[in-house]
């Protein structure tokens, strides 16, 4: 045990240490080497969440209700996973608008409503005040336990409260601007977070491993004891799953909306990037500080402690084991937990009270001498008042409540802010009236279902009159509102308060109209919109702004603020533009928001707005003209947009319908557009072509065209067509600032084929005329010569003459055959066509060859299908077939096989002559149908046979093609249209 004086000196020493630490941090900040602006200190400062409730109350809760104490830490852990989305947005908005409290945040969101800010402040003060008191109660109680007597505890409590108030004033309210960060305060809070964590780990380790054999030993023992149900949840235990879920939800809201949490997480945040590290560091801190809660609670019970005294197990166990120094360290840990909460919470609440309840009443007295000092001192008084209000609660009603019970009531109270705050961040239609209705309804239910029963139980109010009637009625029973039974008190209160809060928030918001200011603020908060210079605002000169500021924050501060603004933008006081004046006004509003709250700042600047009646009239006319011209511009823009859409569609239809392949390429020759015809020509779909290099897609094109050396070419490409297609390509530079090309593809395969046919036909026509003349001119004299030679042969002449005449006659016969062939070639176009069976024509031709000895070595195979009658010239076709068979004979001097087939294919008849002869070179295959071209030796062929065949088949409207390879035989393919 320690004497009260010893303890008092220890506490005093610790407080002095806190002062030194905070002072050191501020000195560092002033020297430009901040030790606070980092994510680790930020994360530790968030641990102000862990109050004496965590330090003492969690053990008490674990000893009485089992695992439910964990919800208070699991909820913030879950909520931390959303900080990337939610908290970062809140910080950005708060920094942009110099928002310093949660009441300011909600008030600003809904049109800078002073009423809403005041309402939130009242809810926060009523909800948090008693909780603040219980922290002081925890200090006094633990002081008493450690001192072993009550004497001096109350006095120590009073003194400690005073010291905490002074600390909060020195490190939280030295200046008026609440948006200014308090590095000394934050560093002290972070230090206290470390102290309380180490102290709890020490006592936890001592109990778990010093008094028992570890976790499993304690759990096994407690399982076998009468308190075995502490390890379970749900049916048959003291905590239902409903209660578990409700507590989890309440703690998720508490970490966001408790005023002290808002202060450390948002106002004291120096860099929004610190949030990311805090997202896992803070939950890790909560995990560590809770590891030994169950072992300490269960250990206390196993050592004979009662559940009623479980709140103080962390102190009483070391004391009972004679570990006084450990107990003293634990006391310091608990003291740290309580003082951190008291300091930050009182600072946050006092700022809310000052900005939203006090300032609206006094801000019009700004003409009073020393007004800024008065405001600052008022704020200090309010801080001290908040701390001593806690002291009042501690000594008056503290004995009636447990730490957990009062803490949860506070959690329920701040959960009332959730709909307005969270939904307001993402839903623009939420209105001031909706928030007010929901908040008031929720607060009334909170008062009726949670606070009033507690006050009745403590005897502070008596159950009589109308109150007695209400409490005992079926419908208005505060524990079973509207007859709803079966819920624990936290779930019951949460259900009804949240239900009415949400219904009224949405309902009223949907059915009422927002003011212009509400709409503007909704944009600022939901869309993170930063309002630029807004013409409707009142304009002040630089001096006027400075004068306004000095009335509220002091002459030196006002001058500094204005000078900072001007120097940052490198503007001279007398050369400031209209736009910069508007920005200066916004800056002034932000500074005043930081010091006095956003609603008051707006009121102050609006009050100062001086416009004459004429000026107001001019302003109104200007706005009307501007809005009219804006409306016209919008109409014109919409019309132009429609026309543009039509033109775009029209031009696209043209490009898609034209029978030309069109593609556009960018400067790097990658495909940007690919029309439908391109898909048909190339077989490549738009999707597959887009973005690909044209060189890859159109590899058949010569590289010259892509190198820009040529802009048109004809190329044979193996595209979608079964055979090669001949394409005409034109490429021209694109008239676009970004560069690029337009490629136009035309399929000219058919055109080229027609041209070739025309050329061949004209060749034949010319040669036909020539041969007709030649055969006539040579034929007549040759007939005379032949008859004379025959007459001479009949004469009895010398043997030499006889032999010579025989030779002459043979040559004459040969010349006559040639002349007849020429005559036949010339007469091709003059023969008539009659309906005939092509099979009969082929049969008669093959019959002719059967009697020719030369065909003995040739094996002729036929494969003939039935085909309809065709209008043909049978003699001419017989000549064609015979020519082809004779050619085959010549190509197979040592014998071979000739296969002849007739097939009907679609609308034509295909006749194929395929031999196994010597074949034809690829180089000359294109010339075999040319007149006088022959591969036979001199005197063996006229070179007219195949040319005659070609002419005959063309005359029948058909085609004849040859396919051959040297050494692998030759195939002639004749196609005749059936309409013949």
């Amino acid at each position: 045990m320690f004497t009260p004086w010893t303890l008092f000196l220890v506490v005093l020493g610790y407080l002095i240490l806190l002062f030194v630490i905070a002072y050191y941090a501020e000195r560092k900040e002033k020297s430009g080497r901040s030790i606070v602006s980092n994510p680790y200190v930020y994360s530790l400062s968030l641990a102000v969440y862990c109050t004496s409730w965590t330090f003492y109350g969690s053990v008490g809760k674990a000893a009485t209700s089992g695992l439910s104490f964990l919800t208070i830490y699991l909820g913030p852990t879950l909520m931390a996973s959303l900080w990337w989305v939610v908290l970062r947005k809140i910080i950005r908005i708060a920094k942009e608008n110099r928002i310093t409290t949660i009441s300011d945040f909600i008030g600003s969101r809904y049109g800078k409503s002073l009423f809403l800010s005041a309402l939130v402040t009242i809810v926060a003060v009523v909800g948090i005040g008693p909780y603040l008191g219980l922290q002081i109660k925890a200090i006094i109680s633990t002081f008493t336990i450690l001192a072993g007597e009550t004497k001096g505890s109350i006095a120590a409590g009073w003194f400690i409260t005073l010291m905490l108030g002074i600390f909060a004033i020195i490190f939280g309210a030295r200046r008026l601007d609440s948006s200014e960060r308090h590095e000394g305060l934050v560093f002290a809070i972070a230090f206290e977070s470390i102290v309380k964590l180490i102290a709890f780990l020490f006592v936890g380790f001592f109990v778990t491993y010093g008094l028992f054999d570890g976790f499993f030993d304690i759990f096994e023992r407690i399982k076998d004891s009468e308190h075995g149900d502490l390890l379970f949840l749900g049916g048959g235990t003291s905590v239902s799953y409903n209660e578990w879920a409700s507590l989890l939800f309440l703690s998720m809201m508490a970490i966001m909306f408790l005023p002290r949490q808002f202060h450390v997480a948002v106002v004291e945040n120096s860099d929004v990037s610190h949030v990311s590290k805090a997202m896992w560091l803070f939950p890790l801190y909560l995990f560590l500080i809770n590891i030994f809660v169950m072992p300490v609670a269960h250990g206390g019970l196993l050592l004979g402690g009662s559940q009623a005294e479980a709140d103080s197990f962390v102190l009483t166990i070391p004391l009972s084991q004679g570990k006084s120094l450990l107990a003293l360290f634990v006391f310091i840990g608990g003291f740290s937990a309580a003082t951190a909460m008291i300091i930050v919470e009182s600072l946050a609440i006092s700022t809310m009270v000052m900005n939203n309840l006090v300032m609206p009443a006094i801000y019009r007295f700004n003409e009073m001498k020393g007004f800024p000092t008065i405001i600052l001192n008022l704020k200090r008084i309010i801080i001290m008042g908040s701390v001593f209000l806690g002291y009042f609660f501690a000594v008056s009603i503290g004995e009636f409540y447990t730490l957990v019970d009062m803490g949860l009531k506070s959690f329920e109270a701040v959960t009332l802010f959730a709909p307005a705050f969270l939904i307001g961040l993402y839903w623009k239609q939420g209105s001031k009236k909706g928030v007010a209705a929901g908040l008031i309804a929720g607060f009334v239910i909170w008062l009726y279902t949670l606070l009033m029963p507690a006050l009745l139980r403590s005897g502070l109010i008596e159950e009589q009159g109308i109150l007695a009637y209400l409490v005992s009625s079926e419908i208005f029973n505060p524990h079973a509102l509207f007859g709803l039974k079966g819920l624990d008190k936290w779930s019951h209160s949460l259900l009804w308060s949240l239900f009415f809060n949400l219904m009224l928030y949405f309902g009223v918001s949907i059915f009422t109209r927002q003011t212009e200011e509400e709409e503007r603020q909704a944009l600022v908060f939901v869309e993170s919109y930063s309002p630029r210079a807004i013409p409707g605002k009142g304009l002040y000169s630089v001096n006027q702004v400075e004068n306004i500021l000095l009335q509220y924050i002091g002459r030196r501060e006002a001058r500094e603020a204005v000078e900072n603004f001007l120097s940052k933008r490198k503007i001279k006081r007398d050369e400031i533009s209209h736009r910069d004046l508007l920005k200066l006004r916004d800056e002034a509003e932000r500074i005043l928001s930081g010091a006095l709250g956003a609603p008051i700042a707006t009121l102050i600047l609006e009050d100062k707005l001086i416009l004459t009646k004429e000026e107001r009239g001019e302003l109104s006319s200007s706005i009307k003209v501007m809005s009219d011209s804006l409306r016209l511009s919008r109409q014109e823009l919409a019309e132009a947009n429609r026309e543009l859409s039509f033109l775009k569609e029209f031009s696209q239809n043209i490009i898609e319908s034209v029978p030309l392949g069109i593609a556009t390429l960018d400067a790097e020759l990658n495909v940007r557009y690919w029309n439908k015809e391109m898909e048909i020509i190339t077989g490549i779909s738009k999707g597959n072509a887009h973005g690909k290099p044209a060189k890859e897609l159109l590899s058949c094109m010569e590289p010259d065209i892509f190198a820009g050396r040529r802009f048109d070419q004809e190329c044979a490409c193996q595209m979608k067509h079964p055979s090669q297609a001949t394409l005409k390509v034109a490429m021209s530079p694109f008239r676009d600032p970004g560069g690029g090309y337009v490629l136009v593809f035309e399929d000219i395969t058919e055109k080229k084929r027609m041209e070739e046919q025309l050329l061949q036909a004209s060749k034949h026509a010319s040669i036909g005329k020539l041969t007709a003349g030649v055969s006539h001119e040579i034929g007549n004299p040759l007939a005379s010569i032949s008859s004379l030679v025959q007459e001479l042969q009949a004469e009895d002449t010398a043997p030499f003459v006889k032999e010579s005449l025989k030779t002459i006659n043979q040559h004459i016969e040969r010349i006559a055959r040639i002349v007849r062939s020429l005559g036949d070639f010339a007469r091709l176009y003059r023969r008539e066509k009659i309906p005939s069976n092509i099979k009969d024509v082929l049969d008669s031709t093959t019959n002719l060859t059967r009697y020719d000895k030369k065909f003995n070595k040739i094996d002729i195979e036929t494969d003939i299908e039935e085909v309809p009658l065709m209008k043909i010239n049978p003699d001419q076709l017989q000549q064609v077939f015979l020519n082809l068979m004779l050619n085959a004979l010549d190509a197979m001097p040592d014998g071979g096989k000739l296969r002849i087939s007739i097939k009907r294919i679609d609308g034509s008849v295909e006749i194929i002559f395929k031999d196994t002869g010597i074949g034809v070179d690829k180089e000359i295959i294109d010339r075999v149908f040319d007149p006088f071209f022959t591969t036979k030796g001199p005197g063996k062929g006229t070179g007219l046979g195949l040319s005659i065949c070609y002419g005959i088949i063309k005359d029948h409207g058909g085609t004849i093609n040859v396919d051959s390879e040297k050494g692998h035989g030759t195939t002639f393919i004749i196609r005749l249209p059936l309409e013949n």
Partner: protein
Amino acid sequence: MKRPEVWIFLFIIGILAFNWPFLDIFSISLPEYLFSFWLVFITLLFIFIRVIGKKERGV
């Protein structure tokens, strides 16, 4: 990885894991389950923050 969706997904996993019916499923050793999953959840937060942080820095 789209950031808001990732965090909302993680949040929903946490909500489900720390409520009925999972609490009922693991009721035999509830303290072990709660503390183990708590640690897993913190680890997931740490990993996600690292991955997203790297993406933001363009690493």
